[in-house]
Each structure stands twice: as C-alpha cells, then as structure tokens.
C-alpha cells in the first residue's frame, strides 16, 4: 500500500511536469488584464481581438499552406526512398544510404537551416531560381527535413509487410507498377497518412529552419510568436495557442476513437471467423 502511494505521487508529479505549463497558458488566455501574469478577471476579449489581427491570421494561413505542401511532397519522396531501401534487395552502398536517410533526424536544425540558406543563395546566383526567399524556399526546406521521418516510417512498414503479397499479385498477372498502386499502396496507406501528419506537425512548429530561409513578407506563425515574445507577450498569443491546441487535441481524439473502434470491430470479426470454423 505504501508502495502504491509513492508510485501515485510519482505519477502526479510527472503529469504535473508535463501539463502545468499548458494549463497555465490556457488559464491566462481568459485573462482580462493586458499583463500576462497578473489575473484581472475572466474575459474572452483576446479571442475576439485575435480574429481582427490580420498579421497573426496571415501567418497562420501561411504556416498551414507550407505545412500541407511540404508534408505532401515529403510523403511522395519519403515513400520512394523507403521503398528503395526496403525492397530493392542489396544494392551497392545500401547500408550507407540507409544511414544517410536518417542523418537529418539528428542533424542540428541550425545547420540544416544554414546549409539550405547557402544552397538557395547559390542557386539564385547561378540559375536565378528561387527568386528571393519566401514560401517556396520554406516549403522546400521543410520537405528536406520532414522527408527523412516519412522515409523511416514507410520503410519500417514495408519491412513488416509480407512480401509474398506483392509476389502473389505479380503471379496473378499484375506488372510491378500496377502491383505498387493496387496492392502495396493501399496496404501501407495508414503509414503514409501518419507520415503525412507527422511531417505536417513538424513543419507547423518549426521556427529555426524557417527563420533561415524565409524572406520579407513570408513569416510563419511560430516565427511571429517567437518574435512577439521578444517585445512582451500579448494575451492574444495565449488565445491563439489555446485554439491551436484545441484543434490538434480534437484531431488526435477523433483519430484514436476511430482506430479503437476499428480494432474492436476487427477483433469481433476474427472471433466470429474462428467460431464459424
């Protein structure tokens, strides 16, 4: 019993460590006072003001666009890379490529950002593209570093996928390209979706890489938040953060609900099948 009590304390402490800051942020978003840390009574006025703030809303919209585009691009590239690593047997330098695809995961973001900035400047001087820095360069930069995550997810899914499924399709007369689109792709679709979501989230909250490769007039939401903190934080930011959290939490909640239901359905089906002999 005593042991249980200690464990319960450890649990509470751990969760407090994780969630007290977030709870504080939400709490102060309903603060009447302009000063973030002084409680001045309940109010929702910062939410109303947020909706009038074109700079913040514009940045949010840009961030969403960049996140969606780079997630899509990195899913395409990551799937191709994952497929090559998981399926084409042993080609020369496979281990090297396998290691190199995961290197961006551990590369410091400042270095990624700096190297991409240098590349874009060099490219602009050499071929005149990309013309200045803005949404295009941010999207490309985000694609580069999120692609590595997607490739790892897809590769591990493909490795666990029974290769005889693809062989069976080929045996039944489907050409390799058709096998990929009709058999492999639908089966790994969940991995692709989760890869896309991960890439989307990574892009959405990146501030370091974006700071290097963005130009005037293309400021993403995390950059706006980060820079506004330097001049004293406005409760509007709290309101915005709360809204973002609500959106993300709802998404995750619905997704896990759907998955749990599917899992239950599958278990029921399997039991029925076994009983049905």
């Amino acid at each position, binding site marked *: 019993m005593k042991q249980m009590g200690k464990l319960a304390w450890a649990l509470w402490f751990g969760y407090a460590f994780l969630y007290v800051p977030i709870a504080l942020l939400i709490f102060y978003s309903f603060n009447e006072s302009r000063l973030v840390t002084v409680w001045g009574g309940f109010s929702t006025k910062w939410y109303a003001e947020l909706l009038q703030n074109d700079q913040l809303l514009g940045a949010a919209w840009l961030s969403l666009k960049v996140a969606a585009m780079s997630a899509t691009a990195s899913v395409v590239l990551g799937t191709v890379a994952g497929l090559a690593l998981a399926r084409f047997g042993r080609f020369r330098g496979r281990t090297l490529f396998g290691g190199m695809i995961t290197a961006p995961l551990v590369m410091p973001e400042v270095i990624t950002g700096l190297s991409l900035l240098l590349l874009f400047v060099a490219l602009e001087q050499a071929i005149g593209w990309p013309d200045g820095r803005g949404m295009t360069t941010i999207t490309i930069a985000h694609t580069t570093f999120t692609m590595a995550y997607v490739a790892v997810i897809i590769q591990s899914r493909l490795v666990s996928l*029974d290769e*005889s499924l693809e*062989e*069976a*399709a080929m045996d039944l*007369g489907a050409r390799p390209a058709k096998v990929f689109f009709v058999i492999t792709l639908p089966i790994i679709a969940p991995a692709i979706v989760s890869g896309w979501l991960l890439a989307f989230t990574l892009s959405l909250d990146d501030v370091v890489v974006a700071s290097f490769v963005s130009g005037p007039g293309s400021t993403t939401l995390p950059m706006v938040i980060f820079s506004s903190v330097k001049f004293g934080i406005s409760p509007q930011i709290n309101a915005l953060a709360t809204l973002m959290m609500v959106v993300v939490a709802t998404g995750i909640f619905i997704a896990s609900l759907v998955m749990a239901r599917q899992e239950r359905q599958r278990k029921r089906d399997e039991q029925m*099948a076994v009983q*049905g002999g």
Partner: protein
Amino acid sequence: MAVQPIRKPTRLEPWQDPGQKPYVRIEKVTKTFGDFVAVDEVSLSIYRGEFFALLGGSGSGKTTLLRMLAGFETPTEGKIFIDGVDMAGIPPYERPVNMMFQSYALFPHMSVEQNVAFGLKQDGVPKAEIKERVGAILDLVQLGQFGKRKPHQLSGGQRQRVALARSLVKRPKLLLLDEPLGALDKRLRERTQFELVNIQEKLGVTFIVVTHDQEEAMTMSSRIAVMNHGVIAQTGTPTEIYEYPQSRFVAEFIGSVNMFEGRVVEDQADHVLIRSEDAGCDLYINHAVAVPAGATVGVAVRPEKIALSKEPPANADGRNVTSGIVREIAYLGDVSIYLVELKTGKTVRVTAPNVVRRTEMPITWDDEVHLSWRPFAGVVLTQ
C-alpha cells in the same frame, strides 16, 4: 500411418511411357545465394496431370526450386522448360503458372470475391465472365456465401480455400503449392488433403506441391522427389519411396526404420545373405544386389514388418530371427510401438497393431521376445 497411395493406377503412368513429353522439364538447375548452394544441379521431368511432391526438410532447397518455377528467383545455372518453352527471362506475370503461397498472401484490403477476381481482371476478362467464374470457383471450394467477407473475417481453413480458389481461377496448366496445408491443424489437414486431390483430379491441373510432411506427400501425390541439401535423393511413387528407398537418408526421412550393418556373404540372382553383428543373426533378403561379396552394407527393416512373439517362431532357420528384451512400450490406440533391446545392445523399433485390448496384451515390459521378419521385408542400402 497411411502408407498406401489413394490413387489406383489404371493405365500406364506418364513417367513410364516413353511417348509422353514432360510438361515441366528442369535441366541441371543450380541456384546459389552467395556461397550457399540452395539447389545443386537438379534435373526433373514432371508430366501433365501429375500431383508431384517436393519433399524435404528446411533448407533442402525445395521452396527455392518452386520459386524458380514461378519466376521469383532466377536459376544461377541450368534451364527450366514449361510446356516446351524456355522460361529464362520470362517474368512471373507472363508465366502460365500460378502459385499458392504458404502464408496464403490474401490481399487484406480486398473482399474474398475481389481477391479471387484479381487475376482475371489483370487479363482483361469481361466483367460478366469474371463474375461467373469467380462464383463457380468459390462454389467448388465451398465458400459460395463468403464472397463479401474480408480475409480477416475468415478462419484458417477458409483462408486456405480462398487462396486455392484464387490460384485456380485463371485455369493455369500448372499450379505450384508451397506448404498448402502447413498452417492448418491436424484434423483439418487430413480432410483438406482429400479435397485437394479431388479438385486436382476434377480440373486436371498439374500440381507441384512443396511439403516437409512425409505423410502429406505420401497420401496426396502421384510421385515424390525427396530433396536433401539441394540435391534430389530419390524420385518415385510413394510406394517405391517407402518400400524401396535407395539411400539411408530416404529410408530414415520417410517413416521410421531400423538400420542394421552387415557384410555380404552370399549374393545370388534370387537372394542375398548378409551376416550382421548388429542384428545378431543372418539377414536373408529375396532380391539381388550388385555388390561384391564381403562388402559392408546397410539393411533397412520397417518397424511394422517385424513380428513379435514370446515363443520362438516355427520353422526358424536362424535367418531374420533375433531376440531381445522389451524396454519401452508406447500405446497409440490403434498400434503400439515397442522398443526392444537386442542382445547385441542395439535397440529395434517394432510397430504392432493392437488386435487385443491393451489390458490383455501378452507382451509387457522386460519380457524376452523374439523378432522375426519375412525375406521381402529388408532393403539393402549401399549408399
């Protein structure tokens, strides 16, 4: 154990008929993976309508050989002909062959009907015909009402039949089956063996089946090739393989066997006499062997061909008769297995049907018993 083939030979079998052309011809095929030789200069001829079994333990190369027929592996050396056409360079999707996978490889995102229709769709068969053929083949495997289900909503036996239907629906001339019954439990396996043979005979398709289960190979196939370390040890009908194994490996792999070592003393046209220290008696066998007198050979005697008695057998001439003490008895219901320790120290396995009830059996532990067998029971093995 089922040793009698369920097929009754009615005509000259194709492999005995010199006028027949083999449907599948494997010529000196070798497959290496790095330094490992999976298949070593294998040659085989398989005829139309056969139910041919490739039998061997794991790592014997049987599955690699099957995958080369399907086109998933390329032979390092040698050639494969199917219906007279050299298969070199022909990809799996253009071969007149279908395969049933050990894991069944059912597409999890498609219903049973869609799984079965997949092959026909690739060939551009009209929709109405697809529907008709899928329905017919599902009826054949008794899954008519399950067409709309997904693979995970089926039991193991049902999945096996979907996989069979999917590989048969394109009406291939040759069907390759990789451990088709491996994932089923024992009862279901026995029932399915007969179903497979019935379907094969009904459709007249040539089956090549890979299995590690010798009983399965014996009951289903018209001929068996026993494989060991990438080499074919022996090819023959189940009866030939069981009754006349050509090597110690085959004798020991198929069923159980007692091996006696001995020296040839007399080799005549109609019999051979072998003096065996192991057996403690002379072994008389009513067929000739082409070995010089004095050579050391092995003699294989199947456990069910040895008779046990408490009294010495009548008209015993000291040949094929020995004695020992019963050390172990395993009661299996229909038969009992006796382990008898001979005076020479060798342990011999004897299988006897339980004609009387267990409680009334005359022979029990530590009894001294006499073992005897007929002249046709032994097989001389020189390899």
